[in-house]
């Protein structure tokens, strides 16, 4: 498989605090890579750095072989048309209706007529089981619906890569399953995905590979099957919810 995103020895600091300390991995064409790790370990920061929402102190990010690490905001626009980001809270534009949220990137970056945009938006609404919500404002939607609108908005322009930040957090088991199915359906369209999650069941079910980020570095990266059977202490402790340094009894 060919790498679509390559991260090489990435360091990111906020003021004096080093969050990422030499992260390296590659995201292969068509795969779904899960990124797990404790809270505050820098998973979202890593995801955000791929589309230039965070700027690394050092290291490289390559997109389709091109170094995109120090691009200007203007230059990032072309990358952001190919890579979509699904925010944890949806980050929907609250002054716009669901329809306008979905139509946003089509209106911004295509020459489609309003009629064609309407066709595409209504199709996507149907795909994401959001029919009848087009005139509603984000505040009128449930958390799960907001997440689905967020995914629909990110995928409507058919990006090559989708980056998900906690797509299943805060959802009940039924809605979580629906969300997993939605992501798997998008995978079948041939989209490459990377997903930050705390939810091991989601990572094990839909990811092709899972990476463990801890202490500012990727400590393990493997298939879900190997992850389950792994004897890696860090990995087992994370899955069982045991903090580093604690013993089993105290946990």
């Amino acid at each position, binding site marked *: 498989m060919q790498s679509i995103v390559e991260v090489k020895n990435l360091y990111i600091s906020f003021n004096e605090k080093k969050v990422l300390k030499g992260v390296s991995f590659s995201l292969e064409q068509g795969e779904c890579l899960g990124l797990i790790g404790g809270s505050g370990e820098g998973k979202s920061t890593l995801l955000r750095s791929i*589309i*230039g*929402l965070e700027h690394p102190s050092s290291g490289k990010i390559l997109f389709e072989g091109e170094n995109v690490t120090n691009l200007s905001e203007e230059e990032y626009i*072309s990358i952001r048309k190919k890579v*979509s980001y699904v925010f944890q809270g949806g*980050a929907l534009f609250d002054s716009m209706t669901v329809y306008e949220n979905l139509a946003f990137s089509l209106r911004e970056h295509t020459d489609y007529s309003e009629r064609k945009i309407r066709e595409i938006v209504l199709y996507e609404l149907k795909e994401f089981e959001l029919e009848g919500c087009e005139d509603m404002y984000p505040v009128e939607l449930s958390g799960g619906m907001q997440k689905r609108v967020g995914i629909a*908005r990110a995928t409507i322009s058919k990006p090559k890569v989708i980056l998900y930040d906690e797509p299943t957090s805060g959802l009940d088991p039924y809605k979580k399953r629906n969300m997993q199915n939605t992501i798997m359906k998008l995978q079948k369209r041939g989209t490459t995905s990377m997903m930050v999650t705390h939810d091991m069941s989601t990572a094990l079910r839909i990811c092709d590979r899972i990476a463990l980020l801890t202490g500012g570095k990727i400590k393990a990266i493997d298939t879900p099957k190997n992850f389950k059977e792994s004897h890696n202490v860090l990995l087992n402790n994370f899955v069982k919810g045991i903090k580093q340094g604690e013993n089993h009894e105290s946990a």
Partner: protein
Amino acid sequence: MNGFTQVIHFLGGIALLFRDIVLELKTKPFYFKIFLKQIYEIGWKSLPIIFVTSACAGMVLTLQFGLTLEKFGGKIYSPKILSLSIFREFGPVFTSLILAGRVGAGMTAEIGAMKVTQQIDALLALGTSPIKRIVIPRYLGGLVAVPILCLFSCFVSIIFGALIGYFELNLDLFYFFYKVFETSKLHDFFSGYIKTYFFSSFIILTACYFGLKVSQGTYEVGNATTKSVVFSSVLIVLGDYLLTKCYWMMV
């Protein structure tokens, strides 16, 4: 960060924001509908408060000038003094200070809330420049609306000043208006009017700067809103002194 450093950061920040506006104005797209909406939000929606405050200012000033000068037999000069003070100073400064509170605070809170809810990040992630979509329409909308509001304010102040002159000081209405227009030369009017373009820039740039700088949650939105009103008000009064000084050096 101490007060002095904060001021230096602020001045540097609005200078960079202004540079970004100029650079991004050169490229497409221009959000004309949002620009029109901002003229409506800044201009039309501020009319009631500008009407009330300008009318009160005109009435109070006429009363103060008239009653004070009456002691020396000089109340007939109150229209002259009123027109000069309104056109040169009170109209532009008073209107701008009111707008710094009404428009600046609202704008900072709106942009700050968008920042906290990751809507600004979502704009970037969808390949849209927040400067283009959020700052430029507001900046240009302010440049159109604030001078018009200032004109409106001046005339309302003069009309209500004349009414108070008629009812309280027994000055003839025709005489009052005759003296106002006889005293005020075009350059008096323009010396005040030109200032409103600067004041508008101070209000909108400050509001956008503090809104975009919000990063730590809703508590910071409140702080940013307060800072926006304080800094833009100080810029207006300081700027007023410097612009007046420049004006007198030129004439």
